[in-house]
């Protein structure tokens, strides 16, 4: 595997270099993106400057026959948080890029002349062309144009108008199996960095190429079979997620009183059953949509889906739990069709749905719209796409919006909006929000089998102070999983079934001819977190940034009427290994 470096600011035009992985050998996904950013990006640089880099990296098993291996990582210094960022996406690009032989694309520099470029990569090489006809196209129209130009076997990595306008909530879009731009590396504004590099779209074509070959193909096949069997037999990965998608969580989180409603005012939303995963799946089926669908080839969990409008026409991909919450309960909206429309607009403009929904919630608190007014919420999203003065404020996220309109209750950490779990009800998630290197992040603390194998030491789960250790171990494990290119939803099956976790390690060993153990996986995760913490420290972050907003400690959350009670001293212990 090589690294494809593209200097967008080279004199005479963008310059391509294909170099070996070198010091980054053995790394993939988040491990690779965070290593590059940590080593090569000056932590004090402006995120939109020539000194920042955008690293797009498939995982260690991407482009192979391993199931679930289609995730891709996008790394940079985040315009939203000012710290290191890795955002993660599904779609086809990871596998195609890996099959093309690239462990990463690194966009560097900054074009001086203001052109926007398309980049085409196939087995014959790389072609970079300025194309002003792509300017301010939505992701859907952009992809259609690319299909006409390059055929229908391509995978696209693109930004919408939000990225071109360098908004801090801008995402990087990835096409799915149907070549729709529905998968996004959403969090942290990586789309703005891509926009600052003048790159509108990267088109990948692996025609004529096959899957990467393992050092021990038979061992990979055997390990993959065990892995897939484990995923299929587990009730989460084999039944709940395929049947209802990630939005299966809505009813349960609501029942727990942890479903942030009306800008994190209360923890339960009366309209939840109207927007639940169960209702969403029934609606999709009734309209000819698909509630069971993979976001990339080789996915056996199939938690995605296809959402049709009332007339049975395609509207958007099945909105995820986070998106339904952000545009639903957080804004007091119980209309699935309105939520789906906002999901479509977010995908088209290229905006992080979590940040957008949290921002609308703050905007509603500021009086720009009433909670529950779905039409007003749609209009606010459209302001972002049009780039109006208000749209530019909203498109830069909840923190900026709160500041402009004088709102105290802004649910962010390190400038990034909180996802769909109130930290007062589930305090351990609050520990992760506060201390994650990424800002408020719900994916930073997924579970691998640290408890099963007692890797990283034994934690007494009954002690409240055990939350600190649990959060630490979960963050370590997640960083490791993010480096493999595996979908994080394998986590529950892996947590419950030691042989499924072992099968994952066996796949890595079979492909690379290694003898990794669970301890090695943990060490990888720890190293990634260490690099990220170090970058953030050099960027000016201190312990005071590892905190939730004060009002979470003071304002009780109904129905349980709880406040966030983990002390600052305990939060500071998360990284003391």
């Amino acid at each position, binding site marked *: 595997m090589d690294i494809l470096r593209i200097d967008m600011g080279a004199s005479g035009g963008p310059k391509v270099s294909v170099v070996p992985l070198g010091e980054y050998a053995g790394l993939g996904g988040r491990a690779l993106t965070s290593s590059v950013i940590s080593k090569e990006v000056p932590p004090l640089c402006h995120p939109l400057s020539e000194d920042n880099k955008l690293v797009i990296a498939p995982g260690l098993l991407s482009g192979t026959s391993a199931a679930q291996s289609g995730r891709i990582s996008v790394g940079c210094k985040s315009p939203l948080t000012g710290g290191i960022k890795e955002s993660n996406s599904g779609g086809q690009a990871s596998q195609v890029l890996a099959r093309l032989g690239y462990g990463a694309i690194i966009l560097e520099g900054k074009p001086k002349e203001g052109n926007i470029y398309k980049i085409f990569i196939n087995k014959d090489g790389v072609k970079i062309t300025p194309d002003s006809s792509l300017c301010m196209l939505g992701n859907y129209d952009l992809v259609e144009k690319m299909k006409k130009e390059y055929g229908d076997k391509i995978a696209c990595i693109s930004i919408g108008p939000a990225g071109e306008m360098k908004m801090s909530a801008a995402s990087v879009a990835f096409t799915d199996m149907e070549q729709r731009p529905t998968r996004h590396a959403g969090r942290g504004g990586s789309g703005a960095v891509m926009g600052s590099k003048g790159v509108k779209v990267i088109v990948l074509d692996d025609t004529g190429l096959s899957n990467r070959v393992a050092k021990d193909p038979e061992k990979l096949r055997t390990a993959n079979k065990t892995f897939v069997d484990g995923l299929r037999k587990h009730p989460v990965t084999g039944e709940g997620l395929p049947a209802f998608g990630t939005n299966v969580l809505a*009813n349960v989180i609501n029942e727990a009183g942890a479903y942030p409603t009306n800008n994190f005012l209360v923890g339960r939303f009366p309209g939840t059953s109207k927007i639940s995963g*169960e209702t969403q799946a029934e609606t999709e089926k009734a309209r000819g949509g698909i509630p069971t669908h993979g976001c990339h080839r080789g996915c056996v969990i199939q938690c995605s889906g296809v959402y049709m409008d009332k007339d049975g026409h395609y509207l958007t991909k099945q909105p995820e739990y986070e998106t339904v919450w952000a545009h639903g309960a957080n804004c007091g909206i119980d209309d699935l069709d309105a939520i789906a429309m906002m999901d479509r607009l977010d995908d088209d403009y290229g905006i992080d749905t979590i940040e957008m929904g949290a921002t609308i919630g703050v905007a509603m608190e500021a009086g720009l719209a009433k909670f529950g007014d779905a039409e007003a919420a749609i209009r606010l999203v459209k302001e972002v796409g049009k780039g109006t003065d208000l749209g530019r404020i909203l498109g830069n996220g909840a923190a900026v919006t709160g500041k402009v309109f004088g709102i105290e209750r802004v649910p962010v950490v390190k400038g990034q909006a909180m996802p769909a779990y109130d930290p007062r009800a589930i305090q351990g998630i609050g520990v992760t929000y506060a201390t994650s290197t990424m800002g408020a992040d719900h994916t930073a603390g997924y579970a691998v089998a640290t408890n099963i194998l007692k890797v990283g030491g034994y934690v007494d789960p009954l002690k409240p102070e055990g939350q600190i250790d649990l959060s630490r171990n979960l963050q370590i494990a997640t960083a490791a999983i993010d480096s493999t290119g595996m979908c994080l939803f394998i986590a529950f099956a892996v*947590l419950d079934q030691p042989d499924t976790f072992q099968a994952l390690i066996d796949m890595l060993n079979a492909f690379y001819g290694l003898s990794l153990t669970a301890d090695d996986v943990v060490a990888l995760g720890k190293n990634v977190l260490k690099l990220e913490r170090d970058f953030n420290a050099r960027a000016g972050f201190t312990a005071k940034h590892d905190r939730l907003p004060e009002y979470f400690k003071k304002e009780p959350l109904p129905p349980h009427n709880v406040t966030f009670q983990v002390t600052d001293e305990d939060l500071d212990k998360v990284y003391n290994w």
Partner: protein
Amino acid sequence: MAYSDKSNGGTFFEGSSPRQISLTVDASLIPAFSQLLQNGFWIKGYVGCSVKAFLCEQFGLSPEYLEKRIQTLFLDGDVVDDVERATVEDGATLSLSAAMPGLAGAVLRKGGYYAAMRDQISCREETTSASMQSGKVLVKLFNMPLQELGPIFLKHGIWVENDKFKDVLKARADDFQRGCGEVRADGRQFEFKQFLEMDWGRGEIFLQVKTI
């Protein structure tokens, strides 16, 4: 699954509102009741006992199903870890779910390793009360239990507000018109259209839905 007679009906009210309704419908119409089941329905039995005793001994849920399938369970919004120690009182809400994905799913899991991360919303289990009495419990069904137990509860009968039930019929009136085999209210048979147009007033009904 056996269904206890203790949970059937009560005395019929006098007046124009029906108290007991039974429908026979095409199986494709069972999902129409999904939101009703998610929002909750009442079942009547003896309370003051453990969650396990209530569901298994009175309503015939198999202990294995409760242990292995219902991996996330709430009692009055608190997360239950031990179904033999959490006590169901009159008017309680029991919410049943399968295992959930992600960190939140792992944290909310019944008896889960990550329970400390949601200590503030965990059920404070206590020893079962010695005196049991008649009472009612609101049951909410989510995801897999919704699909698996929903039809069974509907078949054996649930208590719901009649206006919420009517909303279900109105939302898919044409489908029910086509797919409804028999409608009985307080023992009398009706045509579906006529039944839908009746003025029911407000109140609670005992609803049974069987499939053709």
